[in-house]
């Protein structure tokens, strides 16, 4: 059970909250200009971060207000709670660096590098023209 610190109500049980998915997914400036693929990616594709993740939460049985939270998806450590509309706190970088030392040193760097680096190397080895499509393709879609 997580103990989440609501900015309005203080510490409450996780059961009082609802998860709102990834934070800072900006609405496209001109949705009509997007291709179907870009629109689908905006709608349906979200990061699946291992480590510090910015996400939205709703205190649904308390003050019914939304807020943002930085949470480590491995350790469930809540690193920051900040209001909607404010940028992601910089403290996340330091916390993310510190996370591999906490005990997941063998798995964490390994899995994060394969997630981001592997598609780009395969794309450059095949042909430069396919780079654009493969980098815009979501990482999970190639699996």
């Amino acid at each position, binding site marked *: 059970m997580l103990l989440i610190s609501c900015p309005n109500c203080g510490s409450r049980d996780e059961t009082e909250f609802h998860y709102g998915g990834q934070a800072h997914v900006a609405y496209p400036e001109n949705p009509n200009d997007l291709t179907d693929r870009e629109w689908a990616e905006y709608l349906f594709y979200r990061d699946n971060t291992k480590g510090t993740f910015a996400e939205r939460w709703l205190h649904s049985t308390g*003050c019914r207000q939304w807020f943002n939270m930085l949470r480590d998806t491995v350790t469930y450590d809540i690193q920051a709670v900040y209001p909607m509309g404010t940028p992601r706190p910089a403290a996340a970088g330091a916390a993310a660096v510190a996370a591999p030392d906490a005990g997941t040193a063998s798995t964490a760097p390994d899995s994060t590098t394969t997630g981001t680096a592997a598609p780009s190397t395969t794309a450059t080895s095949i042909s430069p023209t396919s780079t654009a499509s493969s980098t815009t393709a979501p990482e999970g879609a190639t699996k």
Partner: protein
Amino acid sequence: MANTAALEGINGLRDIRRSPASHLASALEAGSVEGTVVLKEGPFQTMAGIRVDPRSEQGSRIASVAGGLPARCGEVAGSDGVSVLWLGPAEFLVVAPEEAHDSLGGDLIGSLTAALGDAPGQVVDLSANRTTFELSGPRARAVLEKGCAVDLHPRSIKPGTALNTEVGNIPVVLLKSGEESFRLFPRASFADFLGRWLLDAMREYASPEVP
């Protein structure tokens, strides 16, 4: 906006109005342990849901009618038997005796609606939305702690504090009305469940304490 005009016609129905946990009345009486923990359903109350920015002009107008608006979580404002409970930064619950309702000769809903006027916000008559359980006695806190994660120790929650939280997995507004008494406001549809849940939680106190 409260449709107060339609309420004039319900006066004749007042006598057949039943509270959401009225069918539990005998069970509540049988399950209460006098001097240890007592549970009963409170009388009907007039309640109004208010959504207004408390810093705005209409917020101060409503505050003057309701007797103040609480500023932060847990606070209860109000005067003359009217309590204003904090539900959110711009959301409040006004609880008053039943006679304050417009259909029974009062003017609470109407005056709140008039205070809001055409400004952004809302005043909604929620008198039938929630019922009241009154839990009191030296063991009242122990009963609640079986299903409420909020710190109910007297050092952190003082009488006159109201929290929007969960008791027995039911969303309730929990008001600490005295040193050893609590008032729970569950929604009407949860009254049966919460009443039985509280009775079950109270059962052990009917038996002699095991040393």
